């Protein structure tokens, strides 16, 4: 089978806008969760989130004018892609065949043009009839809607911006499978490379739902934390008193390439992707199957592709040394994910460290998977495990090693990264230390 390696990575996250800063803050157990200041959320049930700050997308592109007015999800994508591209060395590699360089994103929708729609509704409201005047609505909309605002709502627009920035003309895909999207994108990008359809794939995710309707929607679903206290303590995966997830935003991008292509151009592989597994719960829209069958199947499928037996050990050590959990901090996810890990790893489960960086940066929705896969690679490279912070009140029902509160030194050669989405999509990647 064609080997696929990671040669570049980029992070735009609530914890910072480059690999070094974000990893340092993760290992220092810092939280980026703070009061929302992008809009007035003071009267909302949830007033805090993981917000990207101090970020100027124009610093990450060659010529900002070609991008018109990118939506925030596209801005994040451009920022993370630039870092990945530069780290991979492709920026100075003139021999790259751009028709064999593709892109596969798990990008969420752009921010809907709420302001324009609200303004048009208000202006065309017929007070006497108590409803919108359709004729006035159409006239005012055609005069005032911004065509670029409409285009940027489409979830495939980050793809266009990134492809345009680097001239990528090969296979081009975007999927939007909720919180599992960017893990799926990376898994399928690996398949594109293995099929021989490309030499290089830029892959990852980008998303922001940090707006009034996004927060309200998840509040209505009772999925968001309404923690009343220091926002930094709000996201507490695997705690007994966990009360829902905290909204985050951002992007994680990776340059994937065939090992042959990477070595031929003298690139340094950062890690190798050896397995991808996917499954559907075929259960309820916003609930995982109570027995964890969907997540367990995704993990099993990924390990099978990687040819790894989760129940065996070598010199007393499991073959997987770290799991980056989906770990949302909802009662349901953390309980069922724990159950799924136990189902797959059996007696080895307590010996495999599991942690959730959502405790520090919140849930980046479609971007979560790619951002968390980078965490796995950083663990392999630095020999440090990211902690699960705010784990001061452990749930007695959840009895795995969640790397509580403090980062830990560890020899890590093989990691899993889990992503599960509303709608029942479950995706898992397996990444290993690169060995020639």
């Amino acid at each position, binding site marked *: 089978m064609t080997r696929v390696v990671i040669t570049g990575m980029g992070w735009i996250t609530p914890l910072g806008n480059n690999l070094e800063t974000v990893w340092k803050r993760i290992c220092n157990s810092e939280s980026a969760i703070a009061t929302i200041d992008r809009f007035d959320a003071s009267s909302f049930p949830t007033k805090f989130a993981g917000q990207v700050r101090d970020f100027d997308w124009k610093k990450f592109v060659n010529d900002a004018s*070609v991008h*018109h007015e990118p939506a925030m999800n596209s801005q994040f994508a451009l920022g993370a892609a630039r870092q990945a591209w530069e780290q991979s060395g492709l920026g100075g590699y003139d021999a790259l065949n*751009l*028709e064999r360089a*593709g*892109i596969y994103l798990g990008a969420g929708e752009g921010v809907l043009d709420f302001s324009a729609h609200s303004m048009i509704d208000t202006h065309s409201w017929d007070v006497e009839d108590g409803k919108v005047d359709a004729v006035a609505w159409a006239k005012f909309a055609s005069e005032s809607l911004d065509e670029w605002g409409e*285009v940027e709502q*489409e979830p*495939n*627009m980050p*793809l*266009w911006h990134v*492809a*345009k920035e680097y*001239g*990528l*003309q*090969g*296979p*081009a*895909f*975007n999927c939007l499978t909720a919180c599992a999207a960017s893990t799926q994108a990376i898994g399928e990008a690996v398949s594109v490379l293995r099929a021989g*359809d490309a030499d290089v794939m830029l892959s990852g995710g980008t998303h922001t739902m940090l707006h009034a309707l996004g927060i309200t929607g998840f509040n209505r679903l009772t999925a968001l934390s309404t923690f009343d206290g220091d926002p930094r303590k709000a996201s507490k995966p695997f705690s007994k008193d966990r009360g829902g997830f905290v909204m985050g935003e951002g992007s994680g991008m990776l340059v994937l390439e065939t090992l042959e292509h990477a070595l031929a151009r003298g690139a340094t592989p950062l890690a190798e992707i050896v397995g991808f597994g996917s499954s559907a719960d075929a259960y309820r829209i916003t609930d995982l199957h109570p027995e964890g069958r969907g997540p367990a199947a995704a993990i099993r499928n990924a390990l099978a592709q990687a040819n790894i037996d989760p129940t065996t050990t070598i010199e007393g050590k499991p073959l997987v040394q770290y799991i980056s959990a989906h770990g949302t901090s909802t009662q349901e996810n953390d309980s069922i994910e724990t159950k799924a890990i136990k189902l797959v790893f059996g007696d080895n489960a307590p010996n495999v460290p599991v942690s959730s960086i959502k405790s520090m940066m919140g849930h980046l929705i479609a971007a979560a998977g790619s951002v968390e896969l980078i965490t796995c690679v950083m663990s392999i490279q630095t020999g440090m495990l990211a902690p699960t912070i705010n784990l001061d009140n452990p749930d007695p029902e959840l009895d795995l090693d969640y790397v509580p509160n403090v980062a830990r030194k560890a020899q890590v050669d093989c990691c899993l990264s889990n992503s599960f989405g509303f709608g029942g999509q479950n995706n898992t990647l397996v990444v290993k230390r690169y060995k020639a």
Partner: protein
Amino acid sequence: MSELVTPFASDSSGTVIGEGGGILIVESKSSCDARNGMPWCTIDGIGCRQSFTDSPLEADPHAITSAVRRALVEANCDASAIDVIVPLGAGIPQLDDAEREGLAEVFGDNLPSIPTITTIPYTGNCMAGNGAIAICVAAKSIIEQKIPARLGGIKTEGIRAEKCAATEMPINKVLVLSPSEGGQCVAIILGRMGT
């Protein structure tokens, strides 16, 4: 109203929004055989390319050509094997022109002789659902060995997309093309079972 959308006609004035989609069951041949399933057609080749244009709203003939060529390679056939083409045929002059130019690069002087199936004049432009609808129609055409009647313009330059009645004909391979806003372009070749 049936003549509102006239793909590839010189006086085409734009597209019409539709809605809907198609769902297909794609199955390995061995699985289908094992359960005595009735396959409609084979998926022989897929090509996907990204446009490189100054605007996400522009279509790129080069990307269309490249996607079709990749699909032909995967299908292990040359352009002369294609019996029918299902273009997007949105009726938007700029997109139609790009499709015609991209296809002409592959099919050369033969393009005006290859019948097309255009679905948008029937259903409107169903956006993300459009490609699946096009593939369903293409598969049905292979099964029935007949292309459906075409709605559209009286005359189309350089491509056979003018209004016509349903036509029975031998159909072994159909090319389905889906270029999109944002520059993604997918070409899929369907084949008749047993050919």
